């Protein structure tokens, strides 16, 4: 990797060159919404992206980067670093729980995640909870919680049913959830979800579970996404009509993602937003990239595949305005790759989070 510093910051007349402003220049900048800007300068100031353009910025030091710049991945379902703290086992329903308390910034597993390009993480409740609480958005590299109460997580799949704890049936589950929503007081997370202020992530796996979840979402005016739905291709019209997106879960090995491939292609064709998860507990960001690559080899275009791990993922998590794409005003969470980010033969050169260099492949030696 070449790092050559050209032009030391020289204050121009009348212009204030901020101390921590700089620009990255690369042959390819993948914006994260499908566009790729060639030979571009990304100007970063105060931890946010100020501009992306082809013209060299004035008065700012430029760092030449050898490779492709892409937005950092949004990890949509990280449970590492939570130490099992995201699943309240005595009760199925804790809608007011604030999952940012489960975030352990000192966990050593975060380092590996960042090294593979994940800069922002959504920490949801475990899948056995009906209303597990509100997920938090955290920055593992900075060790900070970026946004509390970001997404309301709901579990509407069989794993939320107990065998010896209530409820044991879908009827009981929906009755319970319906009561909770009906009784939700103004200002509470469920009320906010009903008002569409906070997105939801509803876990539903089988087709009938997905159908029921969609009906519930439409009936209560919920916005957000389904989690799971590997057979989404059979319910594309219903999903599109509901306005929800889909977040595909990882399986233990990307090899079992066949249904996801078909579903991803169907959703892409119907222009329904979808995302892949890195779910480090089972497979990690590389598995997510392999899932995306499997979809690409079946016909998904690279822009859509990258969107599913960056821009659309951020939007589903409710932080699409501040993360997930390289655009003015967004957080400067970038990864420098040796080639196209969706290509498995590319490797991470360096990772920037909030404008700071948080990982560099060289520093860690050949092990990466």
């Amino acid at each position, binding site marked *: 990797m070449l790092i050559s510093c050209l032009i030391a910051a020289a204050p121009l007349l009348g212009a204030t060159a901020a101390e921590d402003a700089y620009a990255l220049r690369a042959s390819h900048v993948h914006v994260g919404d499908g566009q790729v800007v060639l030979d571009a300068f990304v100007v970063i100031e105060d931890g946010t992206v100020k501009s992306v353009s082809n013209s060299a910025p004035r008065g700012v030091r430029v760092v030449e980067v050898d490779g492709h710049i892409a937005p950092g991945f949004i990890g949509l379902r990280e449970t*590492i670093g939570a130490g099992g703290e995201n699943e309240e086992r005595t009760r199925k329903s804790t809608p007011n729980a604030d999952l940012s308390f489960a975030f352990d910034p000192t966990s050593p*597993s975060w380092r590996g995640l960042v090294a593979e390009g994940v800069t922002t993480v959504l920490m949801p409740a475990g899948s056995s909870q009906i209303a597990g609480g509100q997920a938090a958005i955290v920055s593992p590299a900075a060790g900070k919680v970026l946004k509390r109460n970001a997404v309301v997580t709901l579990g509407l799949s069989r794993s939320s049913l107990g065998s010896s704890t209530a409820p044991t049936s879908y009827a009981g589950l929906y009755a319970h959830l319906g009561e909770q929503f009906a009784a939700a007081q103004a200002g509470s997370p469920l009320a906010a979800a009903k008002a569409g202020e906070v997105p939801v992530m509803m876990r539903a796996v089988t087709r009938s579970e997905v159908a029921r979840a969609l009906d519930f979402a439409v009936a209560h005016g919920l916005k957000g996404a389904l989690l799971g739905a590997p057979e989404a291709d059979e319910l594309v019209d219903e999903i599109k009509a509901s306005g929800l997106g889909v977040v595909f879960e990882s399986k233990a*090995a990307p090899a079992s993602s066949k249904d996801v491939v078909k579903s991803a292609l169907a959703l892409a064709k119907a222009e329904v937003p979808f995302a892949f998860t890195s779910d480090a507990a089972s*497979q990690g960001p590389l598995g997510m990239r392999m899932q*995306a690559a499997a979809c690409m080899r079946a016909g998904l275009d690279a822009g859509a595949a990258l969107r599913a791990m960056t821009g659309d993922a951020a939007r589903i998590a409710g932080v699409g305005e501040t993360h997930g794409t390289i655009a003015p005003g967004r957080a400067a969470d970038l990864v420098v790759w040796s080639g196209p980010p969706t290509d*498995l*033969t590319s*490797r991470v050169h360096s990772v920037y989070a909030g404008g700071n260099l948080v990982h560099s492949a060289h520093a860690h030696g*050949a*092990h990466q």
Partner: protein
Amino acid sequence: MRSHSSRPNRRSPLRRLRNLGIALTAGAGLAATSLAVQDEAGAAASSDLILRANKVIVSPGKSVDNMSLLVRDGRIVAMGKDLAAPEGAETIEGEVICAAFIDPWSVAGVDPSSARSDRVDTASRATDALDPFGQDEVLADLVESGVLMMRVEIGRAASVSGVGAVIRADGAEPVLADAALSARLDSPGLDPVSRVGQVDRLASALAGAKKYADDVAAYERDLKSWEEEIAKKEEELNEDFKKAKKARDKKVKEAEEEGEELKEKKYKEDKRPRPPKFDAKKASLARAVGGEVPMVIHVEQALELRELLRVTRPFTRMRMVIAGGRSALLFADELAERGIPVIVTPKPSSPGGDVGEMDPGFALAGELSARGVEVLIGSGATSPVASRDLPLLAAAAVGHGLDQDAALHAITAGPARVFDLQSKVGTVRRGLHADLLVLSGDPLSSSTRVLASISGGKVVHQAGN
């Protein structure tokens, strides 16, 4: 023609053979020229296929631009820049043509319970457990993703698993019925003494097989020499027959005259040598010991691998292949020196998983390759559908340091060579079987699509169909 004689003339077969050889080469030459003539404007067989691409990867690292291939009767019969298509031939065009991917460690196409079984021994054969119908969807996926051949084995839970085969993804047809033996030295959770004991058991099984093979060879030698002895004696007896008969008649007459019984001269015959009791398992394992078929041993941990390398040193003819090999880096020099290839089967795992920093993961392939070890990439024989992502595994390995050509070698020419198929598949050369892929780009690039898969000269998949 020669005149008939009751006894075969010992010299004529040799001469006949020589004459036949001359005739053959002449005929072949004739056929070759006639084939060349036919390339231009001959009558096409119904199975003719023309493949054209901007780049043909002949073998990893060696490619030619703007080439066409003519496929007939399952083989690549011609390669050239300007090949005219014979009448009725189908034409397929693409950006890149390369050899089809071969998964050297797979269970696709094999009945799942046989694959998982522990009741398997060295004489069991994977070809007896093929399941083309029950797995037809999985096999169709493989064909679409470009993995056209797999080395399969059965009996994953057994310690020595039997004779594996190389089969085609299309219809689970065997390409090589006896491809390799396999064994497993991978039982986590045991104490070190038991783990070493596992290796010792394997070593004694190998030694037992070697002894059996030696015994069988010795028996055959003894049998041959005994037969020669008998034949010689018979000839001797035949030659002296008349004389001996006269002498015996004389003796009989003398005995009659003297009123005594004649004591017959007994000829002592050496007893026919007894063959060693047939042992199918040992016979099978002996083929690995003798180097006739390679032996794939699944071993991940350092203790087992070190012991294995040590106990197998005396078996100089054995062709070993290590599968898994997560700790192989520690022994890279010995592996490189002994020419032992390693089938790597990387899995995307959680960062900081149970092995943690010690697990090289995807970087293993690159690091072994850099130390001179031949690296193959396999899907790991855990689930049939895992083979589909073989090219993705190879691409991810490149992303973790493996050289691009070595990665392609790891899933094409490498498996072909290690399992004795290099004269049939694995590279794109005239005369080899037509197991090829027509791609929209570089074979390992994630955005490449498989436009057509050709298996044994047959188009088994075409995108957009």
